[in-house]
C-alpha cells in the first residue's frame, strides 16, 4: 500500500503542471441537468450541483429518486437530455466514458468472471496496449492499495463479496480517475463488512485526494462518509450541504423525515418545524410544547430506547430516550402519554 502510494506521488520538481491540475475550482459540476426517458415526468429534473475538490459526496435518496441516473450521466453511461456536466472545469457532457476522467464502480462490481483479480485490474492497461509485464506490475500495486495482492490470481467466483469489491475498486482506481463514481457500493455486503468497507473507502479517498461520488439509500452511510450530502427525491435535489448541516438544519419536511431521527410538527405560528427525536421527552413539563398520544412502539437500541407515540391525527412522533431515563419509569404499549419538546429546539422548515 505504501509502495503504491509512493509510486503514485508525482515526481517532485515540476511546479508548472501541478498548478495546471490545481487550477480548477470544482471536481464535478452539474448545470441544469435533465434526463427524460419518455414523454412523462423526467427521471432527473433540472438539477445543479457543485462538488468541491477532494470531496466525498453522497447522493442520498429513496429508490427511483434519480440518484443512480445522475451518477450514470456523470459516468457517460446515460445520455444527458438537457444541461451540462463538467469535470475539473472541463465540459464533458457528451464525451465517451473513457474520455471524461471518471471511473465507475458498479453495484454488482461487474468483475469479468473469466479473468483473475490481477487481470481484471490490468484490463484498462491491456486496452491501452501496455506490455504484459508492465501492466501486471502496475495492477499488483493497485491490488496492494486495496490489500488484495495476496489473492491476485483468484477468479471473481473464488472471492467473497468484500474481496470482489476491493478488486473492483482497484480496477477503477488504476485508470487514475479525477472523480470516482460508486453506485451503491456497500449494498451487497453484510452489515458488519459494510461498516468496515465504508471506513476503508473514506481512507482511500483521503489518501488519493480525488472526489468520490457515492450513491446510497442509507442515511447512516451518507452521514458517516460524506463531506457533501445531496438528498434527492422525485428527480430533484431537496438539499445539499455538509452532513451536520443537513442533519441539524433540514430545509424541508422530506429531508427531515428521510434522514430519520426527526419529528415534523406544526409550529405555533403556522408552518412546519422539525425537532430531533433525541430532544423530545415523554411527559409534560412547564415551558415545553406537548402533544398527546398513545405509545405505539418501543424499540430497545442498546444506548437508547425509541418510543413512538401516535397522536390524535394518526401522526407518529418519536422520542429517543436515554436507556436510564426510560427504565426509571418504563412505559407500556397503548399507554396514553404526552410527547414534549422545547420550542427553542424547533427548526423551521420551508
Amino acid at each position, binding site marked *: 500500500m505504501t509502495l503504491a502510494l509512493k509510486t503514485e506521488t508525482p515526481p517532485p520538481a515540476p511546479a508548472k503542471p501541478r498548478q495546471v491540475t490545481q487550477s480548477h475550482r470544482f471536481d464535478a459540476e452539474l448545470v441544469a441537468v435533465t434526463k427524460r426517458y419518455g414523454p412523462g415526468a423526467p427521471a432527473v429534473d433540472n438539477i445543479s450541483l457543485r462538488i468541491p475538490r477532494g470531496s466525498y459526496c453522497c447522493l442520498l435518496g429513496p429508490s427511483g429518486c434519480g440518484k443512480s441516473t445522475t451518477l450514470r450521466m456523470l459516468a457517460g*453511461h446515460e445520455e444527458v437530455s438537457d444541461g451540462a456536466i463538467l469535470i475539473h472545469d472541463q465540459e464533458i457532457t457528451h464525451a465517451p466514458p*473513457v474520455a471524461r476522467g471518471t471511473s465507475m464502480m458498479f453495484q454488482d462490481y461487474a468483475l469479468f468472471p473469466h479473468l483473475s483479480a490481477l487481470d481484471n485490474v490490468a484490463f484498462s492497461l491491456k486496452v491501452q496496449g501496455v506490455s504484459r509485464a508492465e501492466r501486471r506490475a502496475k495492477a499488483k500495486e493497485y491490488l496492494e492499495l486495496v490489500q488484495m495482492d495476496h489473492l491476485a490470481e483468484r477468479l471473481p467466483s*473464488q472471492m467473497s463479496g468484500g474481496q470482489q469489491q476491493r478488486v473492483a475498486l482497484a480496477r477503477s482506481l488504476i485508470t487514475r480517475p479525477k472523480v470516482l463514481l460508486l453506485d451503491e457500493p456497500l449494498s451487497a455486503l453484510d452489515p458488519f463488512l459494510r461498516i468496515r468497507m465504508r471506513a476503508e473507502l473514506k481512507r482511500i479517498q483521503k489518501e488519493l485526494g480525488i472526489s468520490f461520488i457515492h450513491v446510497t439509500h442509507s442515511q447512516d452511510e451518507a452521514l458517516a462518509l460524506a463531506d457533501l450530502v445531496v438528498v434527492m427525491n422525485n428527480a430533484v435535489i431537496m438539499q445539499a450541504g455538509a452532513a451536520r448541516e443537513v442533519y441539524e438544519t433540514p430545509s424541508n419536511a422530506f429531508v427531515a423525515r428521510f434522514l430519520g431521527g426527526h419529528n415534523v410538527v406544526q409550529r405555533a405560528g403556522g408552518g412546519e418545524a422539525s425537532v430531533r427525536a433525541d430532544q423530545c421527552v415523554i411527559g409534560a413539563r412547564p415551558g415545553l410544547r406537548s402533544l398527546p398520544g398513545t405509545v405505539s412502539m418501543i424499540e430497545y437500541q442498546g444506548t437508547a430506547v425509541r418510543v413512538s407515540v401516535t397522536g390524535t391525527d394518526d401522526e407518529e412522533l418519536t422520542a429517543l430516550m436515554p436507556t436510564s431515563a426510560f427504565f426509571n419509569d418504563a412505559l407500556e404499549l397503548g399507554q396514553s402519554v404526552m410527547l414534549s419538546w422545547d420550542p427553542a429546539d424547533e427548526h423551521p422548515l420551508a
Partner: protein
Amino acid sequence: MSSYTRTSRKRPLSFYLLAGLTTLFLIYVYAPMACLYILSFQGPEGGMSFPMVGWSTHWFQTLFSGEGQGLGDVPSAFQRSIRLAACTAVLTLVISVTAGLAYRRKFPGSGAVFYAAIASMVLPGIFVGFGIALMFNLLGWQVNWFTSGIGAQLTWTLPFGLLIMFIVLGRFRSSYEEAAVDLGASASQRFRWVILPIILPGVIGIAMAGLTSSYEETARTSLNVGMGNTMPMEVMGLLNAASTPVLFAIGTLTTLISFSLIILSLVVVSQLAKRRSMRTNA
C-alpha cells in the same frame, strides 16, 4: 431443509405416479434404440428382427468395405452430410451470434424481425424446402448443396441458434460491457476480451445444435441438395428397400458419433473452465 424432507415427510401419491410415467417414457425412448444397437451385431445369416442368429461385426464390416447388398452409397452420403453440416454449423454460429448481439439494444423493428425469424421454425419444413426449390427453378438456377442446400438448412437452424443466443445473452450482465466501456475498451476489444470469453460455452452449444440439426434434417434439405443423397435420405431409401442389418450398423455408428461429439464439446467446455481456474490457482 433436506433433513426435514427426509425424515418427517412422506412423498405424496402424485410423486409415484409421475415417477412411473417418467420411467415409462424413458423406456419408450431408449428400449427401441437398444434393440437397434443389439441387432446391429446380428450374425451374418441373421435378419432385420429378433431372434439373433449368432453375434458378429459382419454388418459393420460390410458397411466399411463399401460393398454388399443393401448398402447403397452410404459412405459418400455420409461425406456429403458432414460437409453440409459443418458449413451450416459455422454459418449458424456466426449469424446467430452477430444477430443476438444486435439485440442487446432495442432497435426500430426489432420485434418484427425477431418474430419473422422465429416463425420459420413453425413453417412446415417440406413446403419451405419445396418453395426454395421452386424459386430456384423459376430463376433458372441449379439447386446445389452449397447454395440452396445450405440456405434451406439455415431456415431451420438459425431460429434455434438465435433462441440459444438470447438465453445466453439473457444471463450476460449488461454491466460487464459497461465496465469494459468505462475502462476504455473499443467495440472489438469488448467483443474479443469480455463478451466472447464469457458466452463461449453457449457459442459452442449453438455450433453443436447447428451441426446435429443439419445432419438429420430432410424435409427442407431433400429437394435442395442437388446431386446425391444426404445421410437421412440414404437411410430412408435403405429402409424402403427393406434391406439387411447393415442399417442397424449405420444407426449404431451414427449414435456413437453423435454422442462422441456431444461428449467432446462438453469436455472442451469443462476444460476451458478448468484451464482458467488452474491458471489462476497457479
